[in-house]
């Protein structure tokens, strides 16, 4: 996974896709489909809808490849942003995600990001995790649940038994704290 992030081949592939290189697009799809599907399917629980959105995302990547700027993050981050935004549009447009669809206990910091894991991780992720680690546990969980699962304020309010305005305030404070921490 992080090998994908690091590999320069994706930059090369995306540059070729921008010139309407169909073979490069096919290779790009094969290398990144599981990553993008992982992102989309976590937000859109229904696999058929996730599959539909995945297709739309790759059409968009084909059309927008020339917008990718090397200095502004890795190709996978750029593609992931497109995927997340499409999935979020879809999940907000549809009925709210039923809470039963979310796991009872979700501590992504433990489940998904194993700091002791042998997988190589980028300096950026290490820095972000360090800053997330400075948030209170519940507030960190809220940020991660929103990012990974596309949880709405309402869903978060129900899950954490707090009013929606409280969740909003917490989100704002947490995000500002992250911003400060990352820029220091």
């Amino acid at each position, binding site marked *: 996974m992080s090998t994908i992030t690091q590999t320069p081949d994706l930059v090369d592939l995306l540059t070729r896709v921008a010139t309407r290189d169909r073979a490069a697009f*096919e290779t790009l799809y094969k290398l990144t489909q599981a990553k993008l599907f992982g*992102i989309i399917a976590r937000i859109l629980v229904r696999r058929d809808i996730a599959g*539909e959105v995945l297709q739309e995302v790759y*059409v968009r990547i084909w059309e927008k490849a020339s917008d990718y700027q090397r200095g502004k993050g890795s190709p996978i981050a750029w593609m992931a942003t497109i995927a997340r935004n499409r999935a979020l549009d879809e999940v*907000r447009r549809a009925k709210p995600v039923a809470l039963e669809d979310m796991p009872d206990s979700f501590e992504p910091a433990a489940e998904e990001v194993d700091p002791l894991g042998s997988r190589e991780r980028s300096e950026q992720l290490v820095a*972000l995790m360090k800053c997330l680690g400075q948030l209170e546990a519940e507030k960190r969980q809220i940020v991660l649940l929103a990012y990974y699962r596309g949880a709405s304020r309402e869903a978060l309010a129900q899950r954490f038994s707090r009013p929606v305005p409280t969740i909003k305030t917490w989100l*704002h404070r947490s995000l500002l704290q992250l911003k400060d921490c990352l820029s220091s």
Partner: protein
Amino acid sequence: MSVSPEDEMSAAEFALGTLDDGERAAIAARRQREADLDGAIAAWEQRLAPLVESIPELTPPQDYLPAILSRLDGRLRGTDDGASNVADLTRRLSRWRVGAIAASGLAAALALGIGLRETNRAQMPHEFVAVLQKSADAPAFMVTVNLDTRDLIVRPVAAPAQTGKSYELWIINDKLGAPRSLGVIDQAHTIANPKLAAYDPAVVTDATYAVTVEPEGGSPDGKPSGAPVFVGKLIPTGR
């Protein structure tokens, strides 16, 4: 590049994904024309992007590549600008409809290059309904749209009466830029002359509908005076 503290938070929540449907649509529309806001969103997307590394891969249930490639072919062939809109719309609607839209009909229409808009209109749902609400358990207005006639009917469900104020209905869509007024909802909670005919069917069905509270008689400057009190999206009724 600087934005107000309020916009900075909207940008952050847009990137995180926690804005609700109406807010998300409004920010997405503003980002198209406001470079500073767009920059603030992009900065937040970058701050959070490293988390993507920690998301495990998941193999899709099927190989979508052939389907994606044929969509690219369809795009290249579609000369009418409306064609891709209709194709997008058809795909999107098919997800929410009971009973699939004849996809083979769409493919055939693409291949023959015949008038897509008209051909597919016949296969698409014509009637849509949106429940405008503040929260899932508090529906306030029901909006019914007929695509053929471009009729729009507003029905009150449980909207509290306003004294000295008016409810105004807005259509919000990226393609429109700013929210556009569809008219003031009168005492009987209907709109006399909804201004729906001007909009493309794809915009109409994809848009977010929002109600604001305005001074009596409607917004004085054609822009929403405040945040929407009720929002909703259209879904096909199955006709």
